[in-house]
């Protein structure tokens, strides 16, 4: 039992304890011991988990690279014939990174939440849900098999739903929660379908299934030979899992829930809907890279979706005025980047962007939350401005995180985004690069627009709010500052070779996540060739010059758009107004402001037909069925009137007799359904006697 093995199970279990204690006794604790004790109790378990996670990571560094996949079996779970699922945690470089993100940022956001939720009447409930979320997310990340991952996957979905609708007394919040839940269900169906296919074919081919990642990886070669309805099995499974990821990670067309999810408290948006849960899809693809490496067509599809998501949501972000909505679309767009990286086989680059994005986006969300609280829960950027003077720590942290997201040289976003764009160019296609490149510029534009509208310029809020606006307490701003520092510096973990670094992060992940060094389709061809005994030659060309060119281009482009934002929103608003007064500009703006009418589109294409169907069925029932019945009644009435005249005396007796027998029989049977315990027991005993007696008579 090594240190890591003894420590890792506690990482998810501790927050679970916290959730249970706060869920059961939270109200008592809150009422008797007050807010601070409740909050500290809520922060304590994530904090211990974070300490354990980091200490395990440093222990891990001293383990030699070959032995870095550590399985920690706890107990059996489901054992049905050859289908054996175990509770096993898997601690390897990928999950170690993930649990550090989840617990580290989780702890900071819990502390931040103490300030943000100050004087909320459901203070304890918030921390209970947040702890439960951490437990589920850690389960998702640490699970060694698909079933455990699915358990966490559903758990985070549940917590997301609970926390989006946290202030459920307002209908909009409750509706947003439901929307997130339902859209996620569509994705989960995909996940389940993929899992079932995996179980089905594994048990057909090998006779036993445990769904653990190690087992699947060792069997993937055989599975790649199988077809499902004429398609390669792995492509189908990969597609199913990607549908799951589309729901959870808000990709087109299932992204619509994420902007609405901003109805929840801001710490929730920061933790769940920016840093951790929404990246679960990316993590899942990284975890199953062995499957996706052999499914080039799915990766092609992923790259299409990712590029579209990345570009479209960035454009929507340009035209939003709600500060959290801008960040939400930005999140969708950044998730698009991660999937872009995944789709060209640069799995580690995707995971690295996940890490950096978690840092800077959490900082941005927390900063926005701080601003929102200071302005008495006003979120419209048109009523902000000049806040940097009032809130220096929040402001500067926010600006630091903005530098990171725009990809300012040597910040974290610079390294991760540049890596993705480069891989998209060299392993995908120049088109993918171009889309990502343009979106990067747009990102820089809308982020600086947000900063200038919020922190610079004239104050646009009313006098009263402005007077009361002040810097938030320490417990709120210190976590933001820490994350901002992380957002600036964390990129140095993965300095690419051409800049003189060693790609340490990619190296670290390499035991579990191996990048494709060529395009997915070629890779697949290589696998096939290798299988047929052909010799495969991989070309090694020196791309340093090209890399530099692309990097300089993207830096210049983001600087240019940042300059545009400065020009239009700080320097010369008149110019903006002049442009916006144009007919076409207005039309484009309205389309963007209304988010391409996607929600309306869904309303029209999905929801309205369903409602119409209901109405149609109701109408059918009313008109046709009732009509038939009435017609039959009409027919019967006249017929019987006609016949009744003829044989009133003869038939009436029979008819009445029939009616009477049905009536009496109905009465007789109706008492069976009376819900009266005495009747039920009496009847059952009579039946019991009949059964016993007949048993004795006919069998015994």
């Amino acid at each position, binding site marked *: 039992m090594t240190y890591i093995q003894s420590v890792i199970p506690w990482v998810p279990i501790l927050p679970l304890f916290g959730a249970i204690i706060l869920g059961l006794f939270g109200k008592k604790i809150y009422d008797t011991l007050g807010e601070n004790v409740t909050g500290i109790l809520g922060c304590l378990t994530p904090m211990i988990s974070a300490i354990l996670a980091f200490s395990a990571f440093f222990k891990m560094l001293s383990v030699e690279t070959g032995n870095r996949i550590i399985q920690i079996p706890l107990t059996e779970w489901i054992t049905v014939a050859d289908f054996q699922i175990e509770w096993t945690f898997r601690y390897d470089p990928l999950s170690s990174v993930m649990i550090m993100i989840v617990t580290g940022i989780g702890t900071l956001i819990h502390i931040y939440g103490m300030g943000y939720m100050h004087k909320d009447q459901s203070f304890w409930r918030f921390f209970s849900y947040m702890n439960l979320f951490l437990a589920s997310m850690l389960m998702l990340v640490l699970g060694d098999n698909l079933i455990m991952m699915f358990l966490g996957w559903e758990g985070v979905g549940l917590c997301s739903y609970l926390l989006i609708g946290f202030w459920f007394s307002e209908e909009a919040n409750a509706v947003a929660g439901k929307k997130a839940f339902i859209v996620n269900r569509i994705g989960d169906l995909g996940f389940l379908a993929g899992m079932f296919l995996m179980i089905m074919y594994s048990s057909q081919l090998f006779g036993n299934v445990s769904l653990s990642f190690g087992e699947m990886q060792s069997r993937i070669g055989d599975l790649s030979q199988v077809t499902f309805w004429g398609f390669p099995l792995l492509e189908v499974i990969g597609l199913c899992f990607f549908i799951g990821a589309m729901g959870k990670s808000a990709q087109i067309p299932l992204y619509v829930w994420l902007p609405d999810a901003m109805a929840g408290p801001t710490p929730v948006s920061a933790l769940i809907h920016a840093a951790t849960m929404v990246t679960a899809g990316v993590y899942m693809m990284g975890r199953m890279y062995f499957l996706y490496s052999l499914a080039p067509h799915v990766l092609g599809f992923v790259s299409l979706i990712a590029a579209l998501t990345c570009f479209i949501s960035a454009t929507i972000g340009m035209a939003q005025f709600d500060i959290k909505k801008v960040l939400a679309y930005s999140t969708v767009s950044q998730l698009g980047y991660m999937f872009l990286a995944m789709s060209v086989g640069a799995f580690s680059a995707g995971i690295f962007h996940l890490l950096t994005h978690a840092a800077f986006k959490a900082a941005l969300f927390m900063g926005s939350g701080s601003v929102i609280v200071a302005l008495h829960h006003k979120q419209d950027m048109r009523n902000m401005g000049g806040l940097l003077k009032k809130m220096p720590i929040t402001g500067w942290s926010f600006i630091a995180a903005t530098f990171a997201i725009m990809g300012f040289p040597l910040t974290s976003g610079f390294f991760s985004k540049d890596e993705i764009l480069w891989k998209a160019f060299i392993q995908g296609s120049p088109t993918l690069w171009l889309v990502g490149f343009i979106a990067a510029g747009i990102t820089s534009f809308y982020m600086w627009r947000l900063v200038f509208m919020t922190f610079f310029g004239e104050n646009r809020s009313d006098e009263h709010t402005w007077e009361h606006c002040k810097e938030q307490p320490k417990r709120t701003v210190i976590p933001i500052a820490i994350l901002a520092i992380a957002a600036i510096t964390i990129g140095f973990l993965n300095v690419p070779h051409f800049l003189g670094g060693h790609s340490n992060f990619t190296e670290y992940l390499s035991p579990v996540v191996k990048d494709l060094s060529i395009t997915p389709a070629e890779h697949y061809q290589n696998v096939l060739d290798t299988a047929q005994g052909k010799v495969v030659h991989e070309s090694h060309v020196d791309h340093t010059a090209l890399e530099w060119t692309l990097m300089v281009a993207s830096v210049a482009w983001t600087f240019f758009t940042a300059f545009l934002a400065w020009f239009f929103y700080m320097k010369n608003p008149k110019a903006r107004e002049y442009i916006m007064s144009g007919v076409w500009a207005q039309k484009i703006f309205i389309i963007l402001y209304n988010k391409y009418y996607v929600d309306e589109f869904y309303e029209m294409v999905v929801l309205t037909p369903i409602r119409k169907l209901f109405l149609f069925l109701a109408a059918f029932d009313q008109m046709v069925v009732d009509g038939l019945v009435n017609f039959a009644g009409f027919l019967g009435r006249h017929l019987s009137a006609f016949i009744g005249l003829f044989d009133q005396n003869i038939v009436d007796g029979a008819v009445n007799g029939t009616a009477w027998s049905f009536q009496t029989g109905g009465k007789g049977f109706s*008492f069976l359904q009376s819900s009266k315990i*005495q*009747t039920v027991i*009496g*009847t059952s*005993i*009579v039946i019991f*006697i009949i059964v*016993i*007696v007949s048993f004795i008579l006919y069998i015994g």
Partner: protein
Amino acid sequence: MEIADLFFYLFSVMIIGLGGVVAFSRNLLHSAFALFFVLFGVAGFYVLLGADFLAMVQIMVYAGGVCVLLIFATMLSDNISQPGKSNLSFQTVLSTVAGGGIALLLLSAFENTTWNVVAPGAMEPTTNSIGKLLLNEYILPFEVISFLLLAAMVSAIMLVKKGENS
């Protein structure tokens, strides 16, 4: 005829006859008092069966406790002056079929079964050995029952108290 047999018939008549009163009387208060004597008759059976301790428990807990509770509940709760309302007419048939059927079934089962009857030994006082059994072999059920009684007591108080507040 032994004196014990005489007592057996006496108690049997008591149980069956007064049991009939309990079951079929229209007046609930009559039923309650008859039940008191039925329980006494059962206690008498216990004595005949050599269970002296049990007989005492039966009288004290059942006749003294439960039955008094029932009488109180009867008098506290319903309009016993309207005994006609006490029976469900349409279920009389059902109950007769079920009751008669199960009685016949049981009696025929007893008739047709061969029991490995051991000749009953001499009667001895049982209190000592039952006490030892309860605190050795049956200590767990004993504790569980104690806890159950406590829970029942608390819940009864809570239930009635809740009604008072509202």
